[in-house]
């Protein structure tokens, strides 16, 4: 009888998402490593795409969540939004770093260079720095509400860099190729099996990201204000913001 219904519900939700993410990863691995063919020119190395692209897209989605959560923080919403902003920024930084490191491997095999001063690569490095800076601002000492609001401003302004990264390959003449999928075209220039593997990998990364966010937010906000407030953060909760008023 140790478990309250509250705890019990949490316990039964989390493995669900984690299991789903694991299954999606297994499916994506099978599709990406076995089912999808090797590429005509790049050979087996093209399979690096099934990590590189989902990592980048997950980072974009995570930074979009930082934006939404930061707006919510600035509108004086529940501090849970502040935890969401932090967790999403951590996910985005990790995924951006993964996309850069893994892209470096891919660049070495496909282009013949590990790194080069191309607009896509540079803007992505700036994106990583920006959100590392965001996490740095979060770590500054000071009143918790002020720190989270200051970080929220960075979280809103910093999002400008996301479309810059995406459009860099269209706005400027780059070594990095233009988008295969994320641009208006009737038939993306990729074989159906490769596309299937790529989309499965995207689903797996997004589910894994959602799993991380859920665990991390729960860790950052360990104590619920009251059991009934579990799902109340969709509306304004005025109680909790009083700490900074001293």
């Amino acid at each position, binding site marked *: 009888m140790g478990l309250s219904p509250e705890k019990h519900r949490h316990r039964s939700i989390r493995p669900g998402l984690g299991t789903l993410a694991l299954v999606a990863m297994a499916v994506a691995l099978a599709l990406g490593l076995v089912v999808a063919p*090797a590429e005509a020119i790049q050979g087996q190395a093209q399979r690096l*795409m099934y990590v590189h692209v989902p990592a980048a897209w997950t980072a974009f989605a995570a930074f979009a969540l930082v934006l939404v959560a930061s707006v919510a923080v600035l509108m004086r919403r529940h501090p849970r939004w502040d935890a969401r902003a932090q967790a999403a920024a951590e996910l985005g930084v990790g995924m951006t770093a993964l996309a850069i490191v893994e892209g470096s491997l891919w660049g070495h095999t496909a*282009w013949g260079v590990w790194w080069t001063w191309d607009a896509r690569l*540079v803007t992505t490095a700036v994106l990583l720095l920006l959100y590392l800076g965001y996490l*740095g601002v979060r770590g500054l*000492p000071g009143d918790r509400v002020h720190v989270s609001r200051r970080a929220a401003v960075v979280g809103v302004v910093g999002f400008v860099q996301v479309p810059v990264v995406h459009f860099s390959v269209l706005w400027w003449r780059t*070594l990095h*190729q233009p988008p295969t999928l994320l641009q208006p075209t009737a038939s993306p220039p990729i074989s159906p099996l490769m596309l299937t593997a790529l989309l499965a990998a995207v689903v797996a990364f997004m589910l894994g990201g959602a799993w991380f966010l859920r665990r991390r937010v729960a860790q950052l906000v360990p104590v619920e204000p009251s059991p009934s407030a579990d799902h109340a953060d969709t509306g304004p909760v005025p109680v909790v913001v009083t700490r900074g008023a001293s």
Partner: protein
Amino acid sequence: MHMSAKRSGWHRSARARGAAVAIVVLVGVTVLAVSGFEGTLTYYRTPSEVAQSPPPTGERLRIGGMVVAGSVRDDDQGVRFVVTDGAADLTVVSSSSPPQTFRTGQGAVVEGTMGSEGVFLADRIIVRHSNEYQPPERPQ
């Protein structure tokens, strides 16, 4: 009074740390921007641009284009091939060997200097692949 002095001092140090973080990020971004700026916005020039305004000899630059089919051959100075943007062609002699993914009909970016007689002397070949991903025409 004592409390408020202490408090403002503490705030000042927080602000100083905030400024330090901001400066570090700004310097990092600036270094990235400046070191990459020259070659970044326009990663390579096209053969047409080079034909219209030839670069001074000795200036390092990148030129990109499609590798012309049948133009690749070995030469005593290295590998020789022609890149084109459809409007202008440029002969390249490279002292370094091309990456494995180098193909005729595909993109390539060469780094080096303009030599005499309109031949580009490259010391590096970078493959620029398209956004197309297809299996080999005849799967094994």
